[in-house]
């Protein structure tokens, strides 16, 4: 083995060891106490957090005499403002889920884990929990000190208040979740009268415990080890994705300032480790992209604050793609096939939902041909078939529905002299008979179409049609 080969190998091994040295992964053995530094991204984060207020306040919206958005599972009705969706229209949900899945992909492809960093409930609730923690226990140094302090009255008091507040938030979260499924006023009434029913109680309890444990204790460990989306999003990021990036060209070799001045031959990074101190997941952005980074951009605030203090240009850590960082021109958005594919899927999903919502039949007729017997011979020689007509009324009012049939010549429809009173949100059934003179039967099977017609309160005519068969002897 030549000397050059040997030295190459040594260098490679040295690199590996160097990497291993800072490749420390926190498996929950140390609690991350992130510092809070005000800044642009911190403000954006509060704005993003506040989106979740909708989750708490949404159920209080009313629409007529009911909750505006209510997923009424016991009655199998899903009210979204003026629209009531019944299980029959549930295929739209799959498109909605597709839409959000692709939205996640688009967001990630363009700007990294925006969802993780700004909108995810794990991030938001942890942020609120640690905000309470800071308010009660003080800054990170004080928190660490308190952790080591003996259990005296002050510590017990502070901790008790903290955990109490956490549990209250967890409980409110649980109630807010359940109130999308149960009328919110009924729910609170049941809570105050201690008559909460089984499913509601279980879900409130689960959410209380889940929120308390996940946001209070597991925190970043959830993002590291529990969350599949964290891993999925990792593969959606490419070289053109703008993500919070440490500019190592400018920053390295890092070095501490001496006597308030940057040392000769060193980069702009003054190695103050503020970017690490503020990180809610405890990673060091200067190691480049890594699984622990939820891309919340708080390190950008921290670094900019320091840069301003030491009189260096800001933006040492900034939103930038890997291509741009390496001096390459960023491909414009329209030149990225991903953007096109994702947009196409988004558009398709939206169009599907739009189509579904615009063609929601107000009434739907179903026709079940009676199989036993298939047909009955009548005394006048005609053939009678029996059908069960089912009218699904998706409106909020009861509808008086008339049934007509067209098909073989000379057919006589009986059982529809009185209109079917179709109860709203329900299926109303009626047995009807169709008689056809034998002479007019052209085969064993003949098509027959049933039409349901109703007029609603606004005077609109609602029509639904369904084809069935008329069966006669061979």
């Amino acid at each position, binding site marked *: 083995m030549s000397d050059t080969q040997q030295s190459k190998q040594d260098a490679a091994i040295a690199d590996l060891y160097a990497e291993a040295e800072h490749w420390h992964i926190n498996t929950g053995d140390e609690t991350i106490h992130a510092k809070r530094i005000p800044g642009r991204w911190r403000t954006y984060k509060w704005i993003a957090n506040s989106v979740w207020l909708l989750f708490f306040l949404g159920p209080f919206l009313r629409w007529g005499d009911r909750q505006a958005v209510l997923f009424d599972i016991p009655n199998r009705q899903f009210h979204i403002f003026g629209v009531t969706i019944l299980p029959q229209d549930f295929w739209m949900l799959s498109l909605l889920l597709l839409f959000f899945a692709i939205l996640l992909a688009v967001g990630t492809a363009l700007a990294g884990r925006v969802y993780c960093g700004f909108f995810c409930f794990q991030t938001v609730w942890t942020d609120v929990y640690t905000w309470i923690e800071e308010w009660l226990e003080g800054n990170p140094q004080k928190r660490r000190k308190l952790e080591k302090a003996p259990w005296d009255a002050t510590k017990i008091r502070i901790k008790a208040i903290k955990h109490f507040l956490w549990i209250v938030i967890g409980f409110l979260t649980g109630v807010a979740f359940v109130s999308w499924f149960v009328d919110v006023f009924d729910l609170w009434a049941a809570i105050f009268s201690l008559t909460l029913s089984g499913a509601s109680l279980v879900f409130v309890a689960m959410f209380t415990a889940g929120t308390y444990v996940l946001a209070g204790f597991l925190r970043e460990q959830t993002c590291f080890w529990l969350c599949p989306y964290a891993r999925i999003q990792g593969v959606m990021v490419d070289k053109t994705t703008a993500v919070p990036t440490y500019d190592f060209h400018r920053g390295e070799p890092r070095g501490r300032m001496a006597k308030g001045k940057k040392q000769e031959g060193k980069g702009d990074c003054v190695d103050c480790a503020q970017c690490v101190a503020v990180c809610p997941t405890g990673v060091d952005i200067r190691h480049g992209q890594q699984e622990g980074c939820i891309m919340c951009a708080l390190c950008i605030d921290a670094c900019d604050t320091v840069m301003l203090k030491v009189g260096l240009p800001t933006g040492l850590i900034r939103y930038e793609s890997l291509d741009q960082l390496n001096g390459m021109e960023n491909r414009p958005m329209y030149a990225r096939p991903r953007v096109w594919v994702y947009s196409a899927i988004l558009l398709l999903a939206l169009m599907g939902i739009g189509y579904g919502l615009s063609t929601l039949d107000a009434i739907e007729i179903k026709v079940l041909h009676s199989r036993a*017997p298939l047909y*009955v*011979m*009548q*005394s*006048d*020689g005609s053939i*009678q078939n*029996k059908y069960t007509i089912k009218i699904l009324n998706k409106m909020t009012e009861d509808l008086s529905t008339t049934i007509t049939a067209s098909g073989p010549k000379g057919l006589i429809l009986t059982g529809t002299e009185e209109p079917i009173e179709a109860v709203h949100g329900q299926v109303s059934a009626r*047995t009807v008979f169709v008689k056809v003179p034998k002479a007019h039967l052209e085969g064993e099977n003949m098509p027959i179409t049933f039409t349901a017609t109703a007029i609603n309160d606004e005077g609109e005519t609602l029509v639904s049609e369904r084809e069935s068969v008329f069966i006669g002897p061979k």
Partner: protein
Amino acid sequence: MADNNPFPGENNTGHVWDDNLRELANPPPRWWMIAFWASIAWFVIYGFIYPMYPIGNESTKGLAGWTQMKEYHESMAEIETIRAPNEDKIAKMSAAQILEDEGLASYVVASSKVLFGDNCAACHGVGGMGGPGFPVIADDDWLFGGAIADIKTSIANGRKGVMTAHGKILSDPEIDKLAKAIIAGKPTSEPLYMTKGCVACHGPDGKGMKILGSANLTDSIYRFVPGEGQTQLDSVKYTIKHGVNDASDPMTREAVMPAFGDRLSEDDIKKLAVYVHKLGGGQ
């Protein structure tokens, strides 16, 4: 063994076979052991709460007092509570009144399927489609009347129509003539219809009499359908020759509707009457 461990310091159990095969001490993880003991505790506690431990031919009753039969009865009671409002109404109403009430009638149609299946379908077929030798009750032709009250009487009291065997009274050619007129739907056009006494039961118009249960000979429905390899004409001739329920002729047709009045409750009979009326031919 352990004193002479050839592989010290590798955390083996000291069990060594064939020089170098040895068992390492790899205890299961703590969480696994906790789950394991918790499962055993669960099993023991479960056994106290529910019937489990055998004692002779019996078993412990369990503290919760749960039995499968108790759960069954509770479920039945639950269903009966749901049905009660309708059942109470049915008890107070006549079959005709039930038929008038659309909601109640559809309750009866939905809930009496089992009743029909247990008591009626064996002869009259699923959905009243009839069977070999048994009448279709889904059509509009009724020997004893298709009004709700008639149907109810038929179920409660049973029916047994009688037709004399005419083999001794009529010659084969006469039977043939009559049968052909019936198949054509015009029995009264045949002079024998009047002279040989058919008119007495089947009426001057040939449409039968409800009180006697005599068949309408002018329509397209036949009480007795032909067997394998026979035509409807053969079947009609057979009926004329051997009659129905005529004890003097051993080859007579047998057609008896048994009485259900002593087998079923009054409410059940009302329900069945409504159910049958709704099959398609009620009048």
